[in-house]
């Protein structure tokens, strides 16, 4: 009997394997590629609109225009679409394995489920971070280049400009991890998608900031954290109403970190504990 020698189990092998799995699916390229183009186009179009409308803007808007320019760098619509797409892709990396039965083959090859799911979480996080950086970076470059046609583009060194890019880029891995966590909990594709959309996109619209406790819930949602992080004129320019329960930039980062961390731990632990 020729058996192969058993080498020590290395975590990097699992990372490589999960990377092969992610890149060997055509849907990954289609989903990521088409969304990236759409998102960059969305943001560039917002800049184009401001470029075209600028002559009609009054003195007040013109004085505050740097905030408008930074808002064009990553628009609210683009952020929502980014959340939807990346959360969906994140969820599919988990639900896709359960739905097809691949999970049984996977766990037969790698009985150490915690290690496997950790590898999956890390690969998805890394890919999504790069993806978010590319999309947010390209959006920033495209939108400011268009506004530069009137000399209105904001250089990346401007206070708050980096924050807009980084917060928008991180929206991708944070949403993807939430999608993975929901997928690991629910394990059913349609239900996962609906509930993930509900939590990430609908809840922020429903919850008011009128009462203290609802404001706490609202501010703890990733979408609202992003809104706060990219709001460079928060509290000090005439177009933002100062909310009754104000939030901070640090609070925004903390919300991102907590959601990502809890979702990642959930993905690893829940899958480890359950039968497949």
């Amino acid at each position, binding site marked *: *009997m*020729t*058996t*192969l020698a*058993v*080498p020590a*189990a*290395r975590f990097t*092998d*699992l990372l*490589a*394997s*999960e990377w*092969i*799995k992610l890149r*060997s*699916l*055509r*849907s990954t390229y289609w989903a990521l590629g088409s969304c990236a183009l759409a998102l960059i186009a969305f943001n560039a179009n917002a800049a184009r609109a401001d470029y075209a409308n600028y002559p009609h803007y009054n003195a007040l808007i013109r004085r505050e225009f740097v905030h408008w320019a930074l808002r064009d760098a990553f628009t609210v619509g683009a952020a929502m679409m980014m959340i939807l797409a990346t959360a969906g892709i994140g969820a599919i990396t988990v639900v*896709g*394995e359960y739905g*097809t*039965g*691949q*999970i*049984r*083959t*996977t*766990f*037969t*090859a*790698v*009985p*150490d*489920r915690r*290690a*496997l799911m950790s590898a999956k979480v890390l690969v998805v996080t890394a890919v999504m971070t790069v993806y978010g950086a590319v999309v947010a970076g390209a959006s920033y470059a495209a939108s400011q280049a268009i506004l530069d046609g009137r000399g209105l583009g904001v250089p990346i060194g401007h206070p708050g400009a980096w924050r807009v890019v980084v917060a928008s880029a991180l929206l991708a891995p944070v949403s993807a991890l939430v999608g993975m966590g929901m997928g690991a909990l629910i394990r059913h594709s349609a239900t996962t998608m609906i509930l993930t959309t509900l939590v990430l996109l609908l809840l922020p619209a429903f919850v008011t900031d009128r009462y203290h406790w609802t404001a706490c819930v609202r501010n703890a949602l990733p979408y609202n954290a992003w809104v706060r992080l990219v709001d460079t004129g928060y509290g000090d320019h005439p177009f933002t109403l100062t909310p009754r329960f104000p939030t901070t930039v640090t609070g925004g980062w903390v919300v991102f970190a907590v959601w990502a961390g809890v979702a990642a731990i959930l993905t690893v632990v829940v899958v480890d504990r359950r*039968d*497949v």
Partner: protein
Amino acid sequence: MLLGLVEPSGGTATVDGRPFRARPRGLRHVGALLDAHDVHGGRSARAHLHALARSNRIPAGRVDEVLAEVGLTASAARRRIGTFSLGMKQRLGIAAALLGSPPVLMFDEPLNGLDPEGVLWVRELFRRLAREGRTVFVSSHLMSEMEHTADELVVIGRGELIAAESLEEFASRGTAPTVTVRSPDAGRLAAVLTAEGAVVTPHDEETLRVRGASAARVGELAHEHRVLLRELTTQSASLETAFMELTADSVEYAAGETR
């Protein structure tokens, strides 16, 4: 349960003395094909095997070896698994099980969807793997197929162990062999055989079913008593009948019965 995918409500299951889930990587210890559909249809066969091999630190060259072994061509290996027939998926599943060249292999109903040539190939493959000193664990409902493949049988009915023994022992538990004999003088032959202590059941005017006497003995007696024979055959008890008799008490869903 053996592979740690499902937790048993009681007791433990070990492979080679260790619970499977205690091993960080599985492919070099146990190769398994549980359900040929347990694959993501969006990947190519090669990418699927490549990812599995990589996770277990198995050199990428093994992928080509097992693909060749199960007869999946290079062009088939590049196709998406979703386009595969069940037979091709079975072959892919067997390829995945062989990747780590493990000492223990488990196959659940591996013959489903295979063409007759594929069935022969699988049978020969299993025998070869066993000859190499590997334990090949095959679960099947096809008793006649097991008759061709297995050395040892484990019979489970309604979650209870019914038998765990060699194929011969199991088969011999069933009804003793019957001899069918046909003669124009069946009446006289029956009398002779009964006198010898055999149990004779007339089948039709010419045919008798004989138990308790071998075909050779029936022939000898016919010769001694100058009875003309037109047919003399032995029906050895098949695994199927032995199985049916042993599991009769534990059939969960018997046909034609109100439950």
